[in-house]
């Protein structure tokens, strides 16, 4: 019963949550709900995929930026198994 009420409250925020448009003080409650609710998690994934289509993919990624990233990889690498 508690889940059902919480679900109703959270559902209305799912679009805003997917766009990072929920204030911090409300975010924690939604995060907790998402850990238990596959339906709400799925809806957020769908909203994010939709938002992804609104973003330009046209700019070629800058080579200079890749060189900066690449040069930082050695120090950024955590210990890995194998």
């Amino acid at each position, binding site marked *: 019963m508690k889940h059902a009420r919480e679900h109703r409250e959270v559902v209305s925020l799912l*679009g805003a949550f997917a766009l990072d448009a929920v204030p911090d003080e409300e975010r924690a409650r939604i995060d907790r709900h998402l850990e238990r609710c596959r339906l709400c998690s799925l809806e957020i994934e769908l909203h994010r995929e939709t938002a992804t*289509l609104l973003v330009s993919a046209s700019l070629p990624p800058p080579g200079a930026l890749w060189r900066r990233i690449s040069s930082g990889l050695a120090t950024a690498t955590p210990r890995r198994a194998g």
Partner: protein
Amino acid sequence: MQWAPNATISETGDATLVAEVGRSSETALAELYQRHAGAVLALARRVLGERGRAEEVVQEVFLRLWTAPGKFDPGRGSLRSYLLAQAHGRAVDLLRSESARRQREERDARAEPSPAYDLEGEVVELAVAERVREAMDALTADERRAIELAYFGGRTYREVAALLGEPEGTIKSRIRSGLGRLRVELAELGVAAA
């Protein structure tokens, strides 16, 4: 091994490349950068309004993919969507920090009221762009505006409500219904996320 470097890397799927990143393949990370960094940069730049900090966000996102590739779960959406969500969250955090807030307020004070939704220059994969525009046309102007202010403006739904002089509940619903309708329209037009 599912892929042979150089020979077939451009045909290798994102998820396989992420697995290779997990085995410390810089070649795989470079290919993923080629595929997605342009979009990640475009989004960060749109939210933050300037290139320097946007590039820092891109750097953080790809370093995180390098150090923690297991955070990406291919069963929960595309890599593009995952990377953009990471970048968006980080950009919004920066934007909401105190100094950034001041800058934005100064900028807003100088600016004209925001222009109407404009996809020009935002979606340039041309075959897709026309359909995305068509799908956006299916939304109400209010829905488009709420989505734009939240996603590209980095504002909370409460800030959007205050800005537009509308109840918070109305804005929440508009964002959710707008995104839902957009998804349906795009699917009908044959556009699906990668």
